[in-house]
């Protein structure tokens, strides 16, 4: 029963590619304009123009700028398996533990946000709008599943829900922390990530523990949104 609920691309070989070639070409061109124009309709228009389309062609994206955020989330999740290379951290005898692999995966995925980091709070704001929450939460769950899978944990036990939720909490809070981190090469973010992962290890994956992460995340998140004057829910 549990195993049938489990999501993974490896177990459910990829359905249709998530974006058409036209969508991909416009959205990937648009992402290059995010650092200077943010997650905005201007950025979408610039992407469309770059590849020969018109301003009006951005109607191809029914959710507007959120489709651009979603494109980044989906493509970086799918790219994770190609980018991460555990052998860098292993020698002939010593293999990485599952928690160590999780740490590598989180850091790798977070690094993919670094080119957009000065604008990533805008993305978080869009993800928090009522209509976009289901898609954002589901994408976070898929990322968490992908990371557990790549770390070699494909256990089908009851813990699976807990593990997914715990890792989602760790990832989301670190991602948020990173948007406020000004230290060189995000040193503070990696320390923050280590502390969160240590907490999970030492406390075990108890439910109270998860809710404390979610609390932290919700709290920090609402502060960010307030500062951006985005209405929170």
């Amino acid at each position: 029963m549990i195993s049938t609920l489990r999501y993974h691309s490896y177990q459910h070989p990829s359905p249709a590619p998530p974006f058409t070639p036209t969508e991909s070409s416009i959205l990937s061109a648009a992402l290059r304009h995010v650092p200077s124009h943010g997650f905005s309709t201007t950025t979408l228009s610039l992407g469309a123009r770059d590849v020969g389309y018109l301003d009006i062609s951005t109607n191809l994206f029914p959710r507007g700028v959120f489709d651009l955020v979603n494109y980044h989330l989906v493509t970086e999740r799918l790219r994770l398996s190609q980018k991460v290379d555990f052998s860098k951290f292993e020698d002939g005898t010593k293999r990485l533990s599952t928690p160590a692999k999780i740490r590598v995966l989180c850091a790798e995925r977070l690094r993919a946000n670094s080119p957009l980091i000065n604008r990533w709070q805008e993305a978080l704001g869009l993800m928090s709008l009522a209509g976009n929450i289901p898609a954002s939460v589901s994408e976070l769950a898929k990322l968490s599943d992908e990371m557990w899978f790549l770390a070699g944990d494909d256990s089908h036990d009851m813990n699976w829900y807990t593990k997914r939720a715990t890792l989602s909490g760790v990832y989301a809070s670190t991602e948020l922390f990173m948007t406020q981190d000004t230290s060189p090469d995000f040193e503070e973010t990696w320390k923050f990530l280590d502390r969160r992962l240590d907490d999970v290890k030492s406390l075990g994956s108890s439910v109270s523990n998860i809710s404390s992460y979610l609390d932290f995340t919700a709290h920090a998140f609402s502060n960010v949104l307030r500062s951006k004057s985005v209405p929170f829910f």
Partner: protein
Amino acid sequence: MAFRLARNRALIAPAKSALGAIPRTALFYSTSSKPASSGQPQASEAETHFGFQTVKESLKAGKVAEVFSSVASSYDVMNDAMSFGIHRLWKDHFVRSLNPGRKSGGSPMAILDVAGGTGDIAFRMLDHADKINGDRETTVICADINADMLKEGEKRAQQQGYISTNRISFRVENAETLDSIPDNSVDLYTISFGIRNVTRIPMALKAAHRVLKPGGVFACLEFSKVSPAPLDAIYQQYSFSIIPLMGQLIAGDRDSYQYLVESIKKFPTQQEFAVMIKEAGFMNVGKGYEELTFGVASIWKGVKPLDSK
């Protein structure tokens, strides 16, 4: 509602006598009861539907024109009554979602509103371009098969001061051909509550594809199929009995509104129409359509690919 009806009746009272002059029998035509009254052998000509009646294709355009001539001046009032004013919200959403107008570093847009009738969509487009995008250069051509509808629109454009700006023009055009509109000349093609009246819908889609620039957008707002089923039953009840009755009360013309209701029922499903749009050479947007108010109306969008001829 009662208050509103009473007020609307008073508003259109002067037009009533003019409408009364249209012979009711001319509006509906049954091929079975009058087989060859025109005296011409037409057995080979394709038949099309006119509401629930089946008529020869060559006759439908004329019939549709009659219906809309007979409703032109009371049309806007009737629209309000029929949809309880919701059509305004749908149209606002339609235009806002398209976001017409010049973007920074871009060019003004050329918009073509087909079956534009009294200009409802055209005016909204210009207002949006101006207020949201600070653009007073984007232009709209309001095209309709029926000169009476366009005359109402022109009157409104006059009153509201659009005419002097040269941003709007009115043209008699059949959606199936769009003869005076050059190839690859339009950024945005809209058709609102119009496609269902067109005799050969695939031809209209082809014409839309022809006039749009590569990258241009086709957007259609139209009544559609309600789901879930219990709601549909209620809606059918409402539309088949109440709308013609209101047509009678408000516009003094039950038959024309009977036609409107039946043509809604005959229109393809949301999914089927999305496939027709794709077959005409457009890329569907998302799953192809967006339902409004449980599917009472829907919006379909398609983008013309760069590599199409």
